[in-house]
């Protein structure tokens, strides 16, 4: 478990190092996630240590994002006179983009599964 956690921390540090050295706009966490996925694909297996460490962290993901989520209640006043525009944009914009993603994926998944059965 701890050994797995060490691997995750090392990949995160590697991602951060790459971001800082090459001045990349992508966060160390996401770079680390890409790197560890590629490494595992090359290795062709994942150790139990790493799998259990990752499962542990993912199961508390909601807890880790909570301090940020609470911030939403305290930043409302900073939108000043524009809160209506912001509220409508977030509500309607997110509804539309979720709809777009679901429709596109459903149509494309159906199309690709149909073409596979035709082959």
């Amino acid at each position: 478990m701890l050994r797995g956690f060490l691997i995750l921390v090392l990949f995160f540090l590697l991602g951060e190092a790459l971001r800082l050295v090459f001045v990349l706009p992508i966060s160390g966490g996401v770079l680390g996630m890409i790197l560890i996925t590629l490494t595992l694909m090359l290795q062709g297996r994942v150790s139990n240590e790493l799998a259990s460490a990752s499962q542990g962290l993912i199961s508390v993901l909601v807890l880790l994002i909570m301090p940020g989520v609470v911030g939403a209640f305290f930043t409302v006043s900073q939108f000043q006179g524009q809160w209506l525009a912001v509220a409508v944009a977030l509500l309607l914009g997110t509804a539309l983009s979720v709809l777009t993603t679901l429709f596109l994926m459903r149509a494309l998944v159906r199309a690709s599964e149909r073409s596979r059965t035709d082959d």
Partner: protein
Amino acid sequence: MTELLPRVLALPETLAATPILAIGLTLSAFFIGNWLFRRLGRPLWLPPVVLAAVVLAATIALLGLDYARYQHSAQWLMLLLGPATVALGIPLYQQMHHVRALWRPIVCTLPVAATLASVYALVIAWALGATPDVLASLAPKSVTAPIAIGITEQLRGSVPLMMGGLLVTGVLATLFVDLLAGPLGIEDERILGFALGLNGHAIGTARAFDISHKAGAFASLGMGLTGVFTALMLPLIWA
């Protein structure tokens, strides 16, 4: 007896000097949120993360701690978000055969949906008269926070404003995926997971892992790809 009271009243102030109070409060709110969610009969429109956040916000306000101080102490928890993001690579690897089977729909959907995720909101906010700095703060609303901070700084938006929009978007995306899946007749966990991660970043991804391991892996993929794509695209089209 009389000298005890001032000391008791000063407790929030004194204990707030160490991060452990913020961590204790966050953990408690997390469990209370989950408990409330079950008591209310698992309402789709009120996920545990929102309930927990309401409880936590109310507690912070009641104790008279201000948010900046709470957040400063809670950084101990948020530090773990880095390794936790890396951890998303493991389910992604384990589900790679499912991802390979769907690579074409994923590659076609991503650029369109990730671009529209910010364009819809930008057009609506612009039409309603939002100023350029507010628009710049709304643009990365579907991107995972650490990447979004970098984008907002580059576009000269306000980071606190962006964080507010980001968090509301994450919660709304989770709600809309849950609410729309039924009427649209979508049961495919791969599609639901991908939509959760693409639109709702870490908040949507956390929800996807509630659905299943497979949905979580697709959410991680959606979140990662949206973050990378938006970070490269937004600064280019921002004229």
